[in-house]
């Protein structure tokens, strides 16, 4: 169905006029879309960042094996060779106890004075840091590592990673359901608004019908009204979520610096796309429902 340009302009004008005529109800609809998208946006951003953190953890994740203190230092590389022979091991680097102490000091920063005096008597052990091709082989590799003589202890944060992945999955599912629920609410409110708009213009619709307007010519302004409501809600929530996110990022970075989070500019385009298409869709669905029910053409 091809529409003439002047018809599109007419529909837009009628849509805006109707929003203004029913401004109270329109405001309520825009507010609902706004609330939906803000809550949805928060979950979305939370989930995106959990994913990101998960990826970083997987990337940085390593198995640490501590060498028995009784092993003489010239035998340590032999253990290294044995480790490298195990399948799925990507990299294996030695961290001597002196390096380990240095790293500790760096992590402590200003508080490094606690470690004063440890230079003479270093209680740490030499260790190998091992990276895997894939975290899934962790159990197998850990098993083989513990069989190598001279290794005192195998440290492995797999449980933490597993838990993080589980939380991520949960948040992803939860945000999907919340989105569906909120979308239903928004659709319901918008369809009510359009119902009132149809009611307010029933006289005009009747005249249009007997003068010979096509069904779609009568319907389009209402569909556009719904889509405009969705769009306005989407734009406002995009603004709020965007600024809010930027602000929260600053707060988080002030107190935590272990993981990187997605910057606002990284996610803006995807967020804008999702919000706008989501807003317009729920607007269109809401008005379509009302038109089916209340606009007998």
């Amino acid at each position: 169905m091809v529409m003439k340009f002047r018809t599109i302009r007419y529909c837009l004008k009628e849509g805006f006029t109707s929003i203004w005529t029913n401004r109270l109800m329109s405001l309520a609809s825009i507010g609902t879309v706004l609330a939906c998208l803000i809550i949805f946006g928060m979950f979305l951003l939370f989930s995106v960042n959990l994913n990101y953190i998960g990826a970083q953890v997987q990337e940085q994740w390593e198995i640490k094996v501590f060498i028995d203190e009784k092993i003489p230092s010239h035998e340590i590389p032999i253990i290294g060779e044995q480790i490298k022979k195990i399948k799925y091991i990507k990299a294996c680097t030695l961290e001597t106890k002196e390096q380990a102490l240095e790293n500790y000091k760096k992590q402590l920063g200003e508080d490094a004075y606690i470690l004063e005096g440890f230079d003479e008597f270093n209680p740490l052990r030499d260790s190998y840091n091992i990276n895997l091709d894939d975290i899934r082989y962790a159990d197998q590799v850990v098993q083989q590592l513990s069989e190598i003589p001279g290794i005192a202890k195998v440290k492995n944060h797999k449980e933490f990673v597993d838990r993080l992945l589980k939380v991520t999955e949960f948040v992803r599912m939860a945000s999907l359901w919340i989105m569906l629920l909120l979308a239903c609410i928004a659709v319901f409110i918008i369809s009510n608004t359009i119902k009132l708009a149809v009611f307010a213009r029933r006289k005009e619709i009747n005249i249009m019908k007997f003068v010979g307007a096509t069904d779609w010519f009568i319907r389009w302004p209402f569909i556009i009204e719904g889509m405009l409501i969705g769009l306005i809600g989407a734009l406002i929530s995009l603004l709020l979520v965007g600024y809010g996110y930027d602000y929260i990022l600053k707060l988080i970075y002030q107190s935590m610096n272990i993981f990187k989070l997605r910057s606002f500019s990284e996610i803006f385009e995807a967020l804008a796309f999702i919000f706008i298409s989501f807003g317009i869709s729920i607007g269109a669905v809401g008005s379509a429902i009302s038109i089916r029910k209340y606009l007998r053409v």
Partner: protein
Amino acid sequence: MILLTNISKTYSNGTIALNGINLYIGKGEFAFIVGPSGAGKSTLIKLLMREEVPTSGNIIINNFNLNSLRRREVPYLRRSMGIVFQDFRLLPNKTVYENVAFAMQIIEASPKEIRRQVPYLLGLVGLSNKAKMYPHQLSGGEQQRVALARALINNPAVLIADEPTGNLDPDTAWDIVKLMHDINKRGTTVVMATHAKEIVNSMKKRVIALENGIIVRDEEKGVYGYEI
């Protein structure tokens, strides 16, 4: 051209509004449909404009066969006729000009055509000087003229009017009927359902009399024939 064969209409509540109507109204005719209240005049008009569907029988109007008419063809049927009601049905928040232009806008006429056609029709119904007024600033007769201008704006072959003078005083009613007569003289078929005995009697046009959903009389140059 309007042709009804064996038209019956029973409403869903069981009321039989029309019962076996056979009727032919030729191109360019002027026909009154008369009868007491409840006779079925409005029902007949609703069937013509496809607001209601007959229970049985067939209607052919302006080359549209209503039995095989598809839903999406209904608007085009309605564009081939101009319709006028007792209650004018103007949009209160639009001016006279806008009310008439509206009928062209919704069939997607070009702005150029609209600018040419609307003043012409407002001239025809004698309202050129009231184009910028709103319906509530006009008398009933003037409002009905606006409705007539709107009905004629897309050059329909048939003008259908359901008691167009029902809300008007006798003098004004006469003006409207004369206007419709002029329109008929220009080639438009006119079908007018009415109660107005005086007008029917002095116009000497075809009179189709309905009673309880049946045509009881159909006369060329007829009279109303009822005591009201």
